[in-house]
């Protein structure tokens, strides 16, 4: 965050919240309790008061375990979901409440790459159709030759063989499909790309290919990324900054190097220690007690309280605020604030 002032902010997320109602329809909300009928709606609190900034040229990685709301954040930013509260600004313009037509010019700027390349391409469209469609849609005045030129240019730049164009997605392997999906997103010349676990469905040797491709595109096209992943080794390699999410709440935001050399939040520490290391013989990972609670009934205090070895009464009752640290990271933890983390704790 130190050079934030000198960089131009591209995306600002302010107080973002998303709840999904579990009980749909009137009848499901009616419950029989203590001898009388009451109406209550249970909802999943997927994202809770998330504040994030993405500067131009950055690759902000959002990490967390399943159910932590990282994909929901991606979908909210992409406009696939509408937030329950909070605002999303892109280049200073509020984008979360735009209609489809107002959003259209922004669609050229913000694109998304999905996790599962087996599902993100329409199985009934040839590669050519899939690539030409967005070009035509966003450039209605293009002639057939111009459309073709654009498609060929993108295909060459992402290593999609031009002889593939007449084939259907099922004829390709996962890595090739992900390449095609990336090409499709790039056909509209975006400047901001939301990547939702783009390599987690791929094999190790193919992951490297796709990651390299995304790095190349970042340099040659000046792209900014919001990169959602659960894989910390990818984060360390790809991200410039990292946001750690737990139960829909941001625990820690820091520059990648800072986060990996000096993690502060107890959850970040546990997460980092759990990654299986290639060269270490013995894992010395921090065991967390219990498992992630369901986001249906959120704890009143810190969401990580139930699994944290440093938790005390305050953690149970009061939500920690995000506090700027001297090294530029932002951490939401009472124990850190009170200096309780430095004391020698069991397991650390």
């Amino acid at each position, binding site marked *: 965050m130190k050079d934030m002032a000198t960089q131009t902010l591209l995306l600002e997320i302010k107080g973002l919240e998303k709840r999904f109602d579990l009980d749909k329809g009137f009848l499901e909300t009616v419950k029989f309790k203590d001898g009388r009928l009451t109406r209550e709606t249970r909802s999943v609190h997927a994202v809770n008061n998330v504040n994030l900034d993405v500067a131009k040229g950055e690759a902000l990685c959002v990490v967390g375990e399943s159910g932590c709301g990282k994909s929901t954040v991606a*979908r909210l930013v*992409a*406009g*696939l979901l509408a937030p329950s509260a909070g605002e999303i600004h892109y280049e200073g313009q509020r984008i979360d409440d735009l209609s*489809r037509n107002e*959003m*259209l010019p922004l*669609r*050229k700027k*913000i*694109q*998304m790459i*999905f*996790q*599962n390349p087996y*599902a*993100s*391409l*329409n*199985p*009934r*469209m040839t590669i050519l159709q899939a690539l030409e*469609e*967005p070009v035509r*849609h*966003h450039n209605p005045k293009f002639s057939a030759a111009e459309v073709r030129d654009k498609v060929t240019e993108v295909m060459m730049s992402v*290593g999609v*063989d031009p*002889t*593939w164009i*007449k*084939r259907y997605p099922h*004829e390709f392997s996962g890595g090739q499909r992900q390449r095609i*999906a990336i090409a*499709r*997103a790039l056909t*509209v010349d975006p400047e901001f790309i939301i990547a939702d676990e783009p390599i987690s469905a791929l094999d190790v040797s193919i992951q490297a290919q796709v990651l390299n491709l995304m790095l190349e595109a970042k340099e040659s096209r000046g792209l900014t990324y919001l990169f959602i992943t659960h894989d910390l080794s990818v984060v360390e390699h790809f991200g410039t900054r990292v946001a750690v999410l737990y139960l829909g709440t941001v625990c820690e935001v820091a520059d990648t190097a800072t986060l990996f050399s000096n993690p502060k939040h107890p959850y970040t520490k546990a997460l980092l220690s759990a990654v299986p290391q290639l060269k270490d013989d013995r894992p010395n990972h921090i065991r967390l007690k219990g498992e992630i609670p369901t986001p249906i009934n959120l704890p009143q205090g810190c969401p990580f309280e139930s699994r944290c070895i440093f938790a005390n009464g305050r953690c149970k009752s009061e939500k920690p605020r995000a506090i700027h640290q001297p090294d530029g990271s932002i951490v939401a933890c009472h124990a850190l604030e009170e200096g309780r983390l430095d004391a020698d704790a069991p397991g650390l």
Partner: protein
Amino acid sequence: MSTESLNPTAEPSRWTKIWNSNMGYSFRKNPVAVVSMIIFLMIAVAAFFAPLIAPYDPYDPASIDIMNSEYPPFWVDGSLPDFSLGTDDQGRDLWSTILYGTRLSLLIGVCAVALQAFLGISIGLIAGYVGGRLDSLLMRLADIQLSFSTLMVAIIFLAVTQAMFGSETFNQYAVFFLIAVIGVAEWPQYARTVRATVLAEKKKEYVDSARVLGFGPGRIMVRHILPNSLSPIFVISTVQVANAIISEASLSFLGLGMPPSQPSLGSLISSGFDYIFSGSWWITVIPGVILVVLVLVINLLGDWMRDVLNPKLYKG
């Protein structure tokens, strides 16, 4: 990149592709489907080329002689060599009449199903894609429609129209009335199936991808979701054609369908029914057998198609 495998020297033709596809393979390996297809094609081709094949034109009063009525088919004593399958009560050649009647039955069946499909697919797509209140409203409508049996709706509708327009006008436009009533009565079959597949497809990432690329709902529905929902549509279409043919035959048998001057299979069976006890069984039985065979082979083809296109069964 190893692209050799993806780069065949010659593009195979569409037919070879279909023949070699999973569907083509399972078709070749399924004798029931092959036989059904052959019989269906024979009936369909004969019906389509009825004016060329039929020795007489049953619509032309000049070619009909009442004196020729109720001749039996050729394997029964007393038959005339001119009328291979005998004649009906009005002296029409039964073979020609069946050809024309089958053509009419198939036409009504296919057109009614096209109408059903159009209504059902549109409503199902919109209900599934838009969701929310509109979905609830449309689906409750479908429930109401389904709770009345097709025949009941058709009987009321046709009886009322017959009374309103008089049987002269009604007989003239009977084909259209039948198509309309069978088409409208059965749209929920399509709407429900299409809605279910749309709900499943809508969750897939390619739909999200299309939304992120800024495509409108119409384009996403028609270009992206619909082509991926075709398998179940094909399956119900075959069964629905068979059902529509049965409905038409039933209505005609009840005297609410095709008039005797333009006989369909149903009205032919109906008109022969009066003579069944006077010994002229063939007027009813032969068209009846054709109807049963036609409906049976279509249903068998539908069963086969369901087995092939249902991914659960296929993987199981």
